[in-house]
């Protein structure tokens, strides 16, 4: 009974580094906003202000993908109260800009997660919880889960642990905010730029591919 199932995984080594220079820090990507040429100083100041606002109102999509979701409940409720950090749970992807992948993703879930992520308006961020998203966790040899999330979706912050406690989640969100304010959290842009690479990986593992094309 020692049959190890070989997972159809793309080669390791992580996603490609940004292939072309990034747009200026925090350049507007609000839905429908037009990119107008602006004077740099004004533009930069605006970007900084925008990032500040973004960082302080993270709306999280309420989708518990795996076991880590159970620690989101204490975080969302009275004891740890993430609303004081400006984080709120939203019911639909169209209202949210943070996707929490709480642990392992079965292939069937991955498909839904990709779809939900693509429905979210930019700028958007992915927070990945726990070992399973980093290197497969305890399901590393399971035939039905993916091992490494950033082969399929751009991850901005990994929170280590199995499973991370609400306190660690708070630290993770604070790190995400810090990165947003500094303009470093640009996974969504990376996804956009390397869409072909991500799609190729996704199609390798999702065999019944029927997702619509990602349109901006």
């Amino acid at each position: 009974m020692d049959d190890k199932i070989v997972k159809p995984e793309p080669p390791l080594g992580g996603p490609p580094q940004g292939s072309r220079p990034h747009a200026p820090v925090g350049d507007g990507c609000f839905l429908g906003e037009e990119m107008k040429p602006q004077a740099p100083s004004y533009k930069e100041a605006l970007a900084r202000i925008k990032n500040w606002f973004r960082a302080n109102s993270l709306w999280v999509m309420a989708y518990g993908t795996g076991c880590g979701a159970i620690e989101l409940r204490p975080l969302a409720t009275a004891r740890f109260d993430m609303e004081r950090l400006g984080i709120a749970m939203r019911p639909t992807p169209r209202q949210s800009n943070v996707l929490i992948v709480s642990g392992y993703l079965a292939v069937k879930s991955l498909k839904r997660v990709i779809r939900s992520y693509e429905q979210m308006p930019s700028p958007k961020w992915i927070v990945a919880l726990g070992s399973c998203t980093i290197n497969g966790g305890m399901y590393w040899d399971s035939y039905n889960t993916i091992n490494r999330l950033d082969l399929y979706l751009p991850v901005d912050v990994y929170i280590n642990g199995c499973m991370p406690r609400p306190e660690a989640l708070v630290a993770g969100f604070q790190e995400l905010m810090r990165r947003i304010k500094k303009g470093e959290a640009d996974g969504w842009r990376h996804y956009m730029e390397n869409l072909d690479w991500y799609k190729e990986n996704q199609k390798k593992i999702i065999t019944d591919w029927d997702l619509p094309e990602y349109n901006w």
Partner: protein
Amino acid sequence: MSLKHVLQPFNAWVQAFSKPYTIPMKDTMRPGADRYRGWHINDVEKCVGCGTCADICQNAAIDMVPVKDPVKGDSGLRPKIDYGRCCWCALCVDVCTTGSLGMSNEYTWVEKDPEKCRYTPGVDAKPWDGSEKGWRQEEGFSLIVKDRVPMPMLDPKERIKTWAEVVVGYSVEEARKEAARCVSCGLCVAACPAHMHIPDYIGAIRDGDFEKALDFIYDNNPMPEMCGKVCTRRCEGVCSVGIQGEPLAIRWLKRFATEQFEDFAKVLHPEVKRVGEGKKVAVVGGGPSGVTVAYYLAVRGFEVTIYEALPQLGGATFFGIPKYRFPMPSLEKQVDLLKKAGVKIVTDHRVEKDEFRRLLEENDALFFGTGLMKPYKLGVPGEDLEGVIYALDLLRDHHVGKKVEVGESVVVVGGGNVAIDASRVSRRLGAEVTIAYRRRREDMPADDEEIEDAEAEGIELVTQSIPLRVEKLENGKLDFIWGPAEMVPPDRPGGRPKPKLIEGVENHLQVDRVIVAIGQKGEFEWMPEEVAEKVVTSRGWVEVDETGMTQWPGIFAGGDLVNSTADAISAIADGLKAVEGIQQFTLEGLSVSKS
């Protein structure tokens, strides 16, 4: 449904005045509980790199990575933990043989790059290093079995009256139970001079497949029954289970495996190519090294002849080791296999200079392992008096069947296994025995278990005693005069501390015999001058290169003459080395590079 049910929920408002549940922001990083399982910590000094943690990790989260050079009992590897796998189950902590691995109660770690989520605790600095709290091993819970299955032994009072074997031996159940304690770390394989496949044969014993066990054992040890009874077992000294508990009884398990079979030839399946057809090799000296060379060359098709001066093969294991430790039938069983493997055995035959020259011409290679057959003298005045005898002579005479007398009381000078053997033999011959040793008990080269057995048999141990002289008394007894010693530190690190005489104090001990067992040397009188001149060093040893070959091409050597540890398993290791060397030399005709 009533108005009550409409109003009642508003009771929730009373909560507005109660203390909030919410943990204040400043406390959101509250510490984990005292035994919280967080990030790993490892005391790398305590850790020996046994890899048990990696074995038990079901997530394959632990890799053993080299962090320093392996030394005896330390593989030099340390666990590297992948937090993309770890599930915080802490089985690795609970199974850790040294207790070095633990988990801190720190739990916060945010990372951008998933590749960075792994580190070697204790080696890669982390903020939680040295954390006091967290999950640690606890008394009362262990995933390995720390206590050894006790070995039944004869009662000390009974055994001094007989020459019967002291160790009774495991039953099948006991052996399998003991074998099941092994964690297969393999530190023993590295420690064993002959690198025997210890975890493999223990595993086979555990599974009840004793034939397979014997195959594994015979793969690199042609005298396993001897080793199973008298080995110095460096393997047990490094056994990782022994760090917190008692080491696996590796020696007893080997003994058990060999005792299961009357005729080894029937159950062994050596898988070797008979490459040496037509090549002749002479082996001078039938000790463990010679037997090793003979057996493994013979199974490879070489034509081997062993020349042995004593009536039986076995060398020091025949004439030196008393029969209550290693009975004759066991030795004969092994010699029997040698004969069946096609080795020609010439006993009671001492090779002299001319014959040596002839052997050198007639054979493709020559191996000698003549051992340390001569005792060193005491070196103090009175050492030539009648009654001062040598342990080697005593043991040899006893074993070849000569009558030996030791009188009523003896003092044995020395602290090695020879001294202990001589004492216990004297004890069985009816004497009161005192062992005088210059250093402390913990410095004694003899096996700990042997010393304990000796003491149980009523042998007295006088340590830190330096022999000054021996005098003849008027009543015919000998006066053994010794002075106390203090210890001075060794001149090089790792060396033995040195005893220094405290002058002005003389102690007397009246005995019938003084038995000297301070050390032995090789003798080279039988060897042609030109050969001896080339191969012998100024300290009385023989120098060989990494293939076992001496300075004289075609002459190989091994055993106590060559190695510094002077035990059987090292001799076997030398033999194994020489087997490869001889094969290379005779078949490929290469003059192996000198180191």
